[in-house]
């Protein structure tokens, strides 16, 4: 147990160093940093458009009022910070690392290869914009609903956000582990990336079958709808239990897929 904790601590320290290096490298190319933030603000406007539609239509969506929809969209924006700012770019850059032989270098490092390959890069600008905007939107929605943000609610919400981020990481790593066989997964990346937007509206809109698939088969809705449901006090016991099990289950599955994929790796530089 002590060895595991030591290993986790070591990886956290390394991650902090990687984040610092990424910030330094982003500051070197400031125009890229600024335009990257502009791009994320553009995407943010599109996400907020869904709230605008809900308000201007003046109707509830599948039983959720426009104020409740803000909480869903806010949570989606917040978790997009983790998706776009923390792991997405790493997963989408995997084919490049394999094709140019840089993956060999990562293999020689005395840390977990999966950790290094999938958390190497981060974008603090995108992360901060989305997380800040997400928190503002969720707080706005809850305050308009007259809900008080007590400590248990905040902690529970934070737990389901962490659970959603873990499920999101696992769900996007699983298809990308095909990269060791296919070498080029750009099309898969584009396709799976478009699935992220399914969380832009509450999962209830997709009907019973869509909801079941999105919660239990490909648990996209665990990522952002679960924290929102908890914050709104509308989460069922079944969902709460699944929200605890799903990250463990899918992280394990992602680990298995990664290891299975890695067996097919052949060095491009060898």
């Amino acid at each position, binding site marked *: 147990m002590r060895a595991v904790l030591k290993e986790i601590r070591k990886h956290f320290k390394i991650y902090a160093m990687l984040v610092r290096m990424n910030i330094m490298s982003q500051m070197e190319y400031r*125009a890229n940093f600024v*335009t990257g933030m502009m*791009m994320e603000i553009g995407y943010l406007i599109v996400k907020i*458009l869904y709230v605008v*539609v809900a308000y201007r239509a003046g109707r509830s969506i*599948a039983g959720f009022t426009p104020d409740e929809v803000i909480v869903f969209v806010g949570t989606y924006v917040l978790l997009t910070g983790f998706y776009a700012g923390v792991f997405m770019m790493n997963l989408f850059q995997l084919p490049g690392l394999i094709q140019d032989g840089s993956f060999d270098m990562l293999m020689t490092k005395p840390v977990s290869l999966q950790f290094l390959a999938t958390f190497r890069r981060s974008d603090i600008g995108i992360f901060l914009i989305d997380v800040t905007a997400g928190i503002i939107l969720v707080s706005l929605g809850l305050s308009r609903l007259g809900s008080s943000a007590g400590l248990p609610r905040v902690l529970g919400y934070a737990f389901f956000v962490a659970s959603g981020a873990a499920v999101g990481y696992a769900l996007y790593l699983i298809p990308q582990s095909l990269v060791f066989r296919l070498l080029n997964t750009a099309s898969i990346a584009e396709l799976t990336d*478009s699935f992220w*937007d399914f969380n832009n509206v509450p999962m209830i*809109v997709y009907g019973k079958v869509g909801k079941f698939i999105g919660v239990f088969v490909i648990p996209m809705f665990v990522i952002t709808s679960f924290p929102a449901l908890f914050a709104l006090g509308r989460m069922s016991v079944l969902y709460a239990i699944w929200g605890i099990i799903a990250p463990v289950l899918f992280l394990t599955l992602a680990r298995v897929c990664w290891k299975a994929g890695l067996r097919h790796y052949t060095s491009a530089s060898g």
Partner: protein
Amino acid sequence: MSDVIAKYGRCFGVGLRNSFAYRINFAFSFLAALSPVVIQTALWTNLYKPGSADLLFGFNYVQMIAYTVIANLVSRLVRTGFEYEMNTDIRTGGLDRFLVKPIGYFGFRMSVFLGAKAAQTVLTGMVLAAAVAVMTAFLGFPLHGAAVATFAGSILVALMLNFLIFWCVGCVGFWLTEIGFLFEAVRIIIITASGGIFPLSVFGDLGERILDALPFRFTIQFPTEILCGRIPVHEAASGFALAGAWIAALALLDRFLWNRGVRRFAAVGS
């Protein structure tokens, strides 16, 4: 004259062949386009009252679903990408090859763009025909031959306008050495202002009036509304006239920006 046609005809052929080289990617981009259609269809289905002649943002249910499907396809079709190549040519000095050759860079890029779009238009047309057939069979979507012919004309205008708009955007490369994600940020804003995400009426009366006065709506909303039957064929003429005026104005702006930009261009070491 025949030399000019032969010269740019060859460039058109280059674009056509390039689009076949990346046909799998284009096919996948269609699959990726399904996500926003599914998301927005689910949203609108929940917002409209079932079985009523309900109007939201000036659209009935069938018109709104048709708008969602057609606008997403049109948005894929008119999408550019040459601005990145233009920027690379400016940044790396590769543009000097074109300045000394008996070929205009504007004509070259436009011929390649139209060549690539020729093949994509055929594929989009087939997908669109299938989608319209499904909507006609299941939703009672009304389709008229005159609307189809006018829609085809409006797509040509949309391609021309989008090319001119993104040529202006590409010219920014003469002034900024680091473009980063600027093009992507601009693209998102332009798609939103074109009605590519939601109809412009969701922005309210004032927002819609302002966006109506800009050229962007002619790239997505105008063709989509023609095919949806929201702009009657006999009323489309004024829209075409306004779009024609914008094409002339943007062509002048493009020429101005290009002439000013080329004066700043330095192909050091190329």
